[in-house]
Every structure is written in C-alpha cells, then in structure tokens.
C-alpha cells in the first residue's frame, strides 16, 4: 500500500464526474476507469464510491438507470447530466487554480520571498 495516493477530500467528486463524462458506467466500471486513468493507484476504498454516487444523483449531477452488466447482473448505470457537465468544468477549473497556486508556492526560491 506504499504507493497508494491519499485522496484529498472533495476530489472524489471530480474523479467520478470525469470518469462518467467519458461514457455511461456502472459503479465498478467507474472504479476501473479511475484506476486506468490514474495509473491504477487504488485511491479509495471501493465501497466509498457508492455514497458519493448517490449524493451526486441526489444533487442532479448524475442520472442512474438500471441495466445489465457484463456478467449478466442488474446494475445501475450512471450518466452525466448537463448540470453535471457544468459542475465538472467548474471543479476542473478550481482544481487547476489550486494546483497552480500550490505549485507556485512550492517552487518559490528563498530570494523571491
């Protein structure tokens, strides 16, 4: 577990929205996609995904529909709504601002301060 990236609170929403934006997925699929994109750093306990998904559905960023998965079981497939798409854009923007700011702080040389 040494390489496990610690997920900052609040970034899970960002990861989920991004993962779903690439196509409608069920819970496990979202997990896999996050893993694929992030280089398979197991960022969260798998079950923690679902309360986050339910919250996003409740806020209207995602819609959930029942469908059949690859192993012929019923699963809920999640899709991004237009509100969700907008929220994703906002989250990405604020994340970029944050990382830029922190990056600037970290790369500051003693003489510059």
């Amino acid at each position, binding site marked *: 577990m040494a390489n496990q990236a610690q997920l900052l609170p609040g970034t899970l929403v960002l990861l989920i929205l991004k993962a779903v934006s690439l196509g409608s997925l069920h819970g496990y699929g979202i997990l896999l996609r996050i893993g694929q994109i992030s280089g398979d750093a197991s960022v969260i306990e798998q079950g923690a995904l679902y309360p986050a998904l339910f919250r996003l559905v409740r806020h209207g960023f995602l819609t959930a529909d029942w469908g059949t998965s690859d*192993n012929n079981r019923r699963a809920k497939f999640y899709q991004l709504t237009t509100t969700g798409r907008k929220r994703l854009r906002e989250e990405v923007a604020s994340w970029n601002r944050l990382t830029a700011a922190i990056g600037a702080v970290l790369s500051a040389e003693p003489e510059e301060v």
Partner: protein
Amino acid sequence: MNEEFRCHLQLRAHDLERQGLTRAQAERRARIEFGGLDRYTEECREALAGRLLRELLADVRYGLRQLRRNPGFTAVALATLTLGIGANTAIRGRLEAPRAERAPAAASRSPPTSDQRERPSEMWRAIFSAVDAVLLRPLPFPQPEQLVAVRESDRQFPSMSVSYPDYLPPCPPIAAPAVSSPTPAHRQ
C-alpha cells in the same frame, strides 16, 4: 442497492480470478477491498434521504418488524381499531340521517349519508366520524338544547351533583329550567 453491491463484488471477484486467485480467495479479497457493506449501505441511504427521514424510516421499519414478530398482538390491535372506527362510522351514519331531515342547513356541515359514498371518502368519513364523535359533536340526543344538568348547592358547596333519589318528588324540579340558570348539556 444490495443488488448493485453484489454486482460490483462479483465483477471484482471475477477480475481477481483472472489475475490468478482461486474463486474463494477472489471473493474474499473483493469483499475486503470493498469495505464495510453495512456501513456503506447505511451511508447510501443517508445520502438519499437525509438524516431525519432516515431515522424516521428506521423507526417505522423497527415498528413493523416488532408487529410481525407478535402476530397475535397485531391482530388484536388491528381488529380493535377496525371495529372501533367501523362502528363509529355506522352509528354516525345512522344518526346523521334523522338530523339531516330535521335541519337541512346543518346537514351541509355534517358528513353526507353513506348512500352517496365513494370508496376513498368512506375512509375519510370513518376518520372524521371518530374525531367528530370524540371532539366536535354535541351529544346525539333529540333536541339536545333542552337538556339540563341539575346541581344542588348550599352554603358550603355551591355546585354539587344530585343523586337520583333526591331528584325525585316530593322535591319537584320541573320548574327548574325557569327558576335557576341550568347548564345546557355539553360534553360533561
């Protein structure tokens, strides 16, 4: 929700099997990776409904569970409620009809007779009749405005109840409505 979790676990176990684990190992590992099933079910419910509603639902579910475990008690309770409300509705209906004849103006205020009943409003009428009988209506006597309550008084006790033998002649109280100021018969 459980279905969703089960699907997830199965898919994960399947992937782990393909990585080389045995079925049992894969299933176990998948469950560990998932984390606390109960906890996440709980969190999902809370995410859906919010705390107050969730706790209310939990209490309702508990109540229903308890009822199911005591079928005898439940049957008796239900029977009592049914009989009580049903009897009230029936009696109420029978009393309303003569009242409606005598005072058509007041009938607009009272619930209509059961001939014109439809199914859903029957239930409301039953509930209304229960509340009505307990709280709202004066006593179901003919000409209730003429009922009086008779009290005795003396120096020490200004208002005492009267026992029946005292009420009888030779102390004729028939003139009492004109003499004293009687209390009309309300819910006493």
